[in-house]
Structures are given as structure tokens and as C-alpha cells.
């Protein structure tokens, strides 16, 4: 694995993605130390100021410092992305593993369930569910998690189906290993590669979904900052206060781009077939 990491960092795609994500993570973690102002500090005398030395990204409709809000917004966006995809991936691994391992009617039931879930446009499903719940950052993570596990399930199932026929699996089956051991000790570690790639790519889309929800007012609630709701605040003034739309827009773009580059790069490096040809 360490070897592969080094290899990954030599891949320009993965490296650039990694740098972007690492940078944003760093800013998010260090937000309280970097932010020049309290993200929720209101100053009615400084409403909608353009970017300046005092306010590097200007101020919003309540005179709050956009730069500080962007930093704290980064925490929300990344947290939602990672936790939501964590939930989705866990569900996906579990269902995919039992589906691919046991096959038969278990597999049929789970795969039809996946088909049903995939036939519903995810964003509208999320909108419908959120409408019944209190919008809060925790509910959003859970709802995104519960509605985006289908891809991972299919991936893991496919891996398991192909692993079932491999010699080492058959060997341990012959030795009388239990199902639990078979799944978690032998098969799962061997299917981690696609899971990692899909995790990283999944975070990108979860960040987008969170921004979308916040933009529609169904996500993170005021006064908490998130990139999505900074963007909504800016929508009305887009011709006049461009900084309210530009900075969160660029931040969302960079984050999604970063995760996608990292994911693609990882796939190139970690894919065993690609590796063998070298």
C-alpha cells in the first residue's frame, strides 16, 4: 500500500486533486484561527461591502464577513460530504457483501431494491424527505446517506461475485471458514479499491447535494453558514454584489473538482489491471 500511495502522488491527476482537498481540509480545520471575524458577527454599518483588505471576500446583506463565513462553511460542506458518504458506503458494503456472497433470493431482493431506489431521482427523493423533517445538518447527512448507497452496493456485489471464484476464497471455504470470516477477512479487503474510489467520488456529489439543499433553503439553517446558503443570499444581488456568488461558487467548484480528480487518479493507480500492464 505505501508503495501505491507514492505512486498515487506521482499521478498528476491524483496529486492535484489531493492538494486541493488537503488545502480545503486544512482551511476548514484551522477556520477558527484563520477567520478574521466571528462568522456570525453582524455589523449593520458594513452591509454588502465589496472585497477589501478588511474583508477579503466582502460582506453580506447583514454585514457579516464572507471570508470567515466561507471558512466555517467549508467545515459544514466537508463534514456533510464525508459523513453522508460514510453512511452510504457502510450500507452499500453491507448489502453488497451479503448480496454477492449469498446470492440466490437474497441477491434478487437486494438488487431489485437497488433498482427501485435508482429509479427515483435522488435529489427529489431527498427534497421530499427533508420536507417532512426539520432541516438540520444531521438530518441532511442521514438523508443523503440513506439515498445514495445503491452504487456502492452494486460495486461491492460485483467484486464479491468475481472473488467467489478465486482460488484463495475457495481455499478458505474448503478449510471451513465461517461466513463472517470469509466476508470480512478474505473478501472485503480485496474489494477495497473500488470502494475507496467510489467513496471519494461520492463525497463530491454529496457536497453538491448539500449546497443544492442549502441553496433551496432546506439545508443548513441560518445563521449557520454553508456555501449553499451564502450562494442563495447572493442570488438576489448577483449583478451588484458579485462577491456573494463568486466565492462560494468557486469553492464548490474546486471541492467537487478536487474530489473528482483524486477519485479518478486513485482509480488509475489502484486498479490492479492498470497496474499489471506496467
Amino acid at each position: 500500500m505505501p508503495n501505491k500511495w507514492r505512486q498515487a502522488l506521482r499521478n498528476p491527476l491524483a496529486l492535484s486533486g489531493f492538494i486541493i482537498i488537503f488545502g480545503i481540509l486544512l482551511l476548514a480545520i484551522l477556520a477558527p484561527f484563520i477567520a478574521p471575524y466571528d462568522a456570525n458577527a453582524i455589523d449593520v454599518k458594513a452591509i454588502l461591502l465589496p472585497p477589501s483588505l478588511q474583508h477579503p471576500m466582502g460582506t453580506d446583506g447583514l454585514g457579516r464577513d464572507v471570508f470567515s463565513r466561507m471558512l466555517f462553511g467549508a467545515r459544514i460542506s466537508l463534514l456533510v460530504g464525508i459523513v453522508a458518504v460514510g453512511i452510504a458506503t457502510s450500507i452499500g458494503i453491507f448489502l453488497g457483501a451479503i448480496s454477492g456472497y449469498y446470492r440466490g433470493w437474497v441477491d434478487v431482493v437486494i438488487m431489485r431494491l437497488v433498482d427501485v431506489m435508482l429509479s427515483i431521482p435522488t435529489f427529489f427523493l431527498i427534497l421530499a424527505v427533508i420536507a417532512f423533517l426539520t432541516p438540520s445538518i444531521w438530518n441532511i447527512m442521514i438523508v443523503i446517506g440513506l439515498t445514495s448507497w445503491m452504487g456502492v452496493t452494486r460495486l461491492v456485489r460485483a467484486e464479491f461475485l468475481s472473488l467467489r471464484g478465486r482460488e484463495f476464497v475457495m481455499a478458505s471455504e474448503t478449510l471451513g471458514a465461517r461466513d463472517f470470516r470469509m466476508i470480512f477477512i478474505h473478501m472485503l479487503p480485496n474489494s477495497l479499491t473500488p470502494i475507496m474510489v467510489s467513496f471519494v467520488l461520492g463525497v463530491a456529489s454529496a457536497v453538491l447535494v448539500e449546497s443544492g439543499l442549502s441553496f433551496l433553503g432546506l439545508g443548513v439553517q441560518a445563521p449557520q453558514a454553508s456555501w449553499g446558503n451564502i450562494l442563495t443570499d447572493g442570488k438576489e444581488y448577483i449583478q451588484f454584489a458579485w462577491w456573494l456568488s463568486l466565492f462560494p461558487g468557486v469553492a464548490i467548484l474546486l471541492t467537487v473538482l478536487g474530489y473528482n480528480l483524486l477519485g479518478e487518479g486513485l482509480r488509475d493507480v489502484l486498479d490492479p489491471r492498470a497496474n499489471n500492464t506496467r
Partner: protein
Amino acid sequence: MERPLLLKYLSLRMGTLLSLGLLLTACSKEPGGNAADFDQSYPPSSGGTLIDATAGEPSGLIPMIAGEAAASAVASNIFNSLLKYDKNLELQGELAQSWSVSPDQKTITFKLKPGLKWADGKPLTSADVLFTWKLVTDDNTRTPYGSDYKLVIRAETPDVATFRVSYANPYAPALDSWAGLQILPEHLLKGQDINTTSFRFKPVGSHYYKLEEWKPGERISLVRNPNSTQGPPRIDRLVSRFIPDPAAQFLELLADNIDSMTLNPIQYSRIVPSREDLQKKLALYKELGNNYTYLGFNLKHKPFDDIRVRQAINYAIDKQELIDGVLLGLGEPVSSPYKPGTRWTNPDLSPYPYDPNKAIALMKEAGYTGRDKEGYLLRNGKRLSFDILTNQNKQREMSAVLVQRRLKEIGIDANIRVMEWASFIGRFIKTGDFDVVLLGWGLSLDPDQYSIWHSSQQAPGQFNFIGYNNPRVDKLLEQGRLELNPDKRMKIYHEFASILLADSPIVYLYAGYGLPAIHKRVKGIDNPAPPAGIGYNSYDWYIPPPLRRNEISQ
């Protein structure tokens, strides 16, 4: 691979060229071009089209059934009432030439103007008025406006030009109510179900304009009614486009595709003044606000039944900060539930000043003596913690953020919950399942606010959803309805307002100004706006021929 790409490129280029060409022609067609000076004055003339935007599409154009602002905005140009308000908010005849109140103050007799006609040429008589009264009081008519008219115990038409109503007791808001009832034609509606009739999509009225065309999802256009009971208006055609998003409305205003809209404070005091091209073509007006924003407590929930807690919260909120921050100074503080500056507003009252120390002292009296590690006030070891509910309205959301911060400063833990309107009303207001709401009340012209504050009006769906109950206020509200002498009536409502302020069942936050922007091609608008707002003489507005836009071809 090469060829398709090239083709694609070429077609793209063609596309850009084509659209550029279109743009150029569009520009050259701009009315008057750059030479037009919209500030120049012109003599009044007839003709032209005024285009405005409404956020919602009406569900129908019978106002008593539709009940929404979008419907009444359009319908008010189609239908007449017996009475109307003039520029100084005094009652004036509209269909009625005169009216008289009997000495016992229980009977009102309206005399209609002679020769009134519907847009289709049929005569408009007192029978139509009687018919409309029967409709609005019929239990099968699904209207929220029936209650005022149900107090009439007898309505009669001694002759075609006379309409007489009698009340069991003197009812002071009666005249105001007859300014609010738009008269419908009996000959077109007789025997039909008013709730479902197709008349709502093809109304026939008696006012300045009649319906020309309704394109669902797009626009309603009205043209001049040749049989108008009020004489001819100057502008030929009124078009209302349905544009739900205010930001999109503003872009349409900038692009010259609509002539008027209501601005928000940022657009009004920052965006328009910062751009010379906009200043050249837009005239900005400032009207007395017709609603106020408040923070309302659920008085049935603890601890909001405690007047000290309510007053403490009132002292903790800085109203001037809200006016400066949310309205950019374009509003006024409120201390009576009436239009600031009108007769019903009690001039001796002033809002609770911002005084956090007094707020903390009051909270202490109410038992909040402790503080936890985060600095929140504690009573019996428990924080005062609640949700401020509001609907998706930018100004209300911003106000909630400011209020929340001030409450946090004295140690009250408030969270903000923003909801879509229908679920807000259905799930929280009608069920009474809320602690604190941030909402607004419209300011009507009659001071009667029985439905909002009387203790009998607390059933689900009624307006006293905060559960206000004060016997003295009940008494005053009942008296105010019986008193027709304006001076005595004024005293009653002044006392009512001062009790309301002291009780603090709601915290008045502010009354924002109405901020209409109208293209300068439209002339004849009063500036500064009179108490009734600029729209009172819209029939007198005109668009000089050189400034008219090209008529939109269908």
C-alpha cells in the same frame, strides 16, 4: 472526427452571429433609442401599455373566492365597490353617488350613480348589489370574507338605484366593509355555483378595464372598458406578467421588459442609485408601509404566559438595528398596530427601548437567576430555549438572525426555523404548535382588529393564534365596533393600543416602506406618495407617445 467538429464549430459561429444580429436589431428598436429623455415633461395623452409583474398567478378573478393578493390586484381594475378610499384615506363613493346613515346608526342607504353599465352593456342596478351581498353571505360560498356582511340583518332594494342594509347593532366597520366588496353581475352569475363557475376566468366587471386575454402561466392583459362606470382611464392596456422570483422580476425591470415592480431596500438604496443608466429610466417612490413585522409569542406555552419574560425579550431587541440592517433605514418603528402617522395610531406611545440590562433584570424577576457555563440564563436548572419560526422571506429571515443574536446576548437560546408558507400555516399556526413566530400583519384602513385580538377568535384557522386573552381589550374591541363617532372611536383604539403595548403579546419589530419603482415613461404619478400610496390615481397615469415601447405583437 475532423468534419463533425468543424461543422459543430461553424454552426456555433452561425448561432452567435445570428443571436448577435438579433441583439443588434433589438437594440435599434429600443423606444427612442439613446436620445429619449425620460425626465422631459409631456402633456397628458391616452394610449399605451403598462406592464407589471406579479409573483403569483391568480386562481381566478372573483376576489371574494380567490382570496389571494395576486387575484385582488388584477380584479381591482375590473370590478367596482360601492365605496372607495381617496388619496387621504377618506371614504368616497365609487358606484354609490351618496350614502346616508340613519339616526339610530343601524341602517345605511346607498344611492347608486345614474346610468351605470356592465362592460357587456347591460345596466348595473341595486339588484346586482343585493345579489353580491347574498353571494358573500351564502354558506355555500367558500369565502373568508363573509363575516362582516353576515351582520346585516336585512338588505333591500327599494328601487333600481337604492340599496339599503340594516344591522342589529351599530357596526362601525360597516362602511369600510362596503368599500371592500366588489360588486358582481347578477345576469351572468345567477343560478351558477360561484365556487366553480367559469366566470372566474372570463370576468365581466364595470371598472376601468376589462379582461382581454389570460395566457395561463404567462400573463393577464386588460384593455380599457368602454362602458367604465368611472370614466375612461388614460392608459389603454394593463399587462400583468407572472414572474415568481423577485430577482428575476428585477432583471426584467432592468431589461425594460416590465414597467413597474416593488423593490427591496437593497435594490432601492444601493443598486439603482449606483447605476446611472437605471437612474435615468427608473423613478423610485416611497409609500407608507401597509404591514408590520412582529415577533409573536404563543401565550399558552410557558414561559411566554409570563409578562415579564415577554417584556424582557421586547427590551432585549434593538428595533433601530433591525430597521437599519434589514430595511437599510427604509422603515419605521411601530408601537400601535396601525399605519404609522394615521389617525388610529396612538401618538403617545413609543416602542420599548433597547435596554439589555432591564431585560436581564426582568428575566431575574421571572425566576431566571442562574447561568450555565455558556452564559445562558437558567430557571430551575433549565435554559429558556425555543424555535423562532418564520416563512421563506428574506427580510424575515434576516430579522430572525438579528433577533437571535440579541437574545443570545442576554442569555436566551433561540433557534431559527425557516419554512415554506403552506406547511408553516398548516403544521404550526393552525395547530398552535409553536413557541415564537416571526410574521407580519397587514394594516387595514379600518381600526377594527377584533379577529386578531379578541379572545373568542382562537379556534384553529382563526387569527388569534397566539392565544391573546385580555378582558379589557375584548371590551374595547366590542365597543369600537359599535362606536360610529370617529373621535370617540379613536380614543377607544388608542387605549387598546396602549394596553397591547404594555402587555407585549407580540414584539413590534418594524413597518417597512413600500418601495415601488416605475419606469419614467409613465407620467402623472404623485410624488411624494399620498397616504393612500401612489396607485390611487393610476387611471390618470399616462405614457407619452414618444416614450411608448413598441407594442408586443402576439
